[in-house]
């Protein structure tokens, strides 16, 4: 009997497909030959392990699905042990304390100056000439900046449409609206510094007006940690929100709140928000105060006067899950960290800026 047939017999034995006579013979063989018996046991253990392994994978998937529905960030805030009162006072009032300290230092300095402690003409002369020098180099600099700007404006003319997109991963996977890239022959994205990169369309969901792009440009380097995480659960009415994007090709920050959980004609794909969304804003990230990404602003639906909409982030998460594996070089790992919580608006913009892109298309 070949090894293959031996294995087949063992499997038939374990799955109970043997006739009574075969079974008897098989068991007799096991008794007579210890080596054979070991083979039977080993195979059963191995096949069992394979099965248990698959059950474990399935259980882990089930647990992960449940886990996704928990708003971990909110929970974490409420469960952190509270720091010492002195740390709390510093956290809450450090700006006021700093101001008080600077005022004191300024007062001391002016008293000293008034008392003639700094009466040193030579130093002041030197300082004056230094300032004049700086002035001059500043003028040259702004001239060259203007030159660069005018060059850039010229290149911008080539593009036939613009929108906004934002990074999902540090290696340049970007989300935007489908209608932004709908008729595009080629797609470019431009970062906050004005540098543009060629991008490919990785995946689209026209029914949800979503598109996923991937920067495919050798000059592109990693963005660093994404400062927001995508929220699966729905946000509450009245939640404070802000967005950052490129309406009219100008970086723009706007804030407001969530008005309704449904969009135009009560569709459940959109939120209605009290933030002016202009053409070019399409595909901008919509974030809440804690740095959760809750939606993608969508200027296409803004036909009704005074009503503005954003696609719920849940649909984005689903779209990411639906990207066919073949089109990805590596699995998408989304950020779970919110680095925006507790920052003021200026600092939030500063953080988000780097991860938001102007999406420019060349139509065919």
């Amino acid at each position: 009997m070949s090894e293959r047939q031996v294995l087949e017999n063992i499997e038939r034995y374990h799955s109970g497909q043997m006739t009574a006579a075969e079974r008897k013979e098989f068991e007799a063989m096991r008794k007579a030959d210890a080596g054979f018996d070991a083979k039977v046991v080993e195979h059963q253990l191995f096949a069992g392990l394979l099965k248990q392994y698959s059950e474990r994978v399935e259980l882990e998937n089930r647990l992960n699905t449940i886990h996704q529905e928990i708003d971990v960030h909110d929970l974490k805030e409420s469960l952190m042990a509270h720091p010492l009162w002195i740390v709390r006072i510093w956290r809450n009032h450090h700006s006021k304390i700093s101001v008080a300290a600077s005022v004191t230092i300024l007062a001391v300095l002016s008293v000293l100056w008034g008392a003639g402690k700094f009466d040193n003409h030579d130093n002041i002369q030197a300082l004056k000439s230094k300032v004049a020098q700086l002035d001059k180099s500043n003028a040259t600099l702004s001239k060259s900046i203007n030159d660069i700007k005018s060059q850039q404006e010229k290149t911008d003319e080539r593009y036939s449409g613009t929108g906004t997109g934002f990074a999902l991963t540090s290696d340049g996977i970007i989300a935007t609206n489908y209608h932004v890239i709908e008729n595009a022959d080629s797609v470019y994205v431009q970062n906050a510094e004005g540098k543009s990169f060629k991008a490919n369309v990785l995946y689209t969901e026209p029914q949800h007006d979503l598109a996923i792009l991937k920067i495919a440009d050798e000059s592109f380097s990693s963005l660093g940690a994404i400062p927001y995480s995508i929220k699966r659960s729905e946000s509450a009415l009245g939640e404070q929100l802000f967005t950052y994007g490129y309406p009219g090709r100008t970086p723009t920050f706007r804030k407001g709140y969530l008005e309704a959980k449904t969009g135009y004609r009560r569709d459940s794909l959109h939120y209605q928000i009290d933030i002016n969304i202009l053409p070019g804003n399409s595909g901008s990230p919509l974030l809440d105060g804690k740095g959760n990404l809750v939606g993608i602003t969508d200027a296409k639906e803004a036909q009704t006067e005074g009503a503005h909409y954003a696609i719920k982030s849940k649909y984005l998460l689903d779209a990411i899950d639906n990207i066919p594996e073949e089109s990805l070089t590596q699995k998408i790992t989304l950020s779970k960290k919110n680095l925006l919580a507790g920052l003021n608006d200026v600092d939030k913009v500063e953080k988000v800026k780097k991860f938001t892109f102007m999406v420019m298309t060349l139509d065919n």
Partner: protein
Amino acid sequence: MNKELKDSTPTDSEVILGILNNSETALKKLYVAYFPMILQLIINNSGDEDDAKDIYQEAIIVLYNKVKAGDFELSSKLKTYIYSVCRRLWLKRLNQINRYGGDIKDFQEFLPVEEDDLEKHADRDVQFKKMESALQLLGEPCKTIMEDFYIHNRSMQEICERFGYTNADNAKTQKYKCLQRLKKLFFQQI
């Protein structure tokens, strides 16, 4: 989070019966009910939310397997059991990464854990890791043939048709070769 789920902590026997009956709702209720407790334990003892997720899921899996194997006796509250297992697992992890300062801040009462359970779990985990990488190294079409036959219990006839083998004998030979390779890959690993 769903408010109803959050507010309804399941009873211990509800959870155990639920696991035995493969109830998705019971598993979800269990998971949602005790996760905050473990998050609190971990983030206040030098961990972050990802650590909490790992540790908590490991404990749920230990419980799940123990219940399924029929040797879970409810000698304490389920809550205390889960907390104790997580606490033990986290202490172990802290020791491994040298972050343990000899002191852990506790939020619940806890009991000593049967080390047996955790060891059994750790052993099995090692085996699963090996199986995972063996399957990955195995490649296609072997991987799918193995999964179809040994996991999804598909017949050789079905596999033969799915992969377009000209006759069942060819498919059987292929399956045999794949299994031999998988075993080799599995046992080669240390």
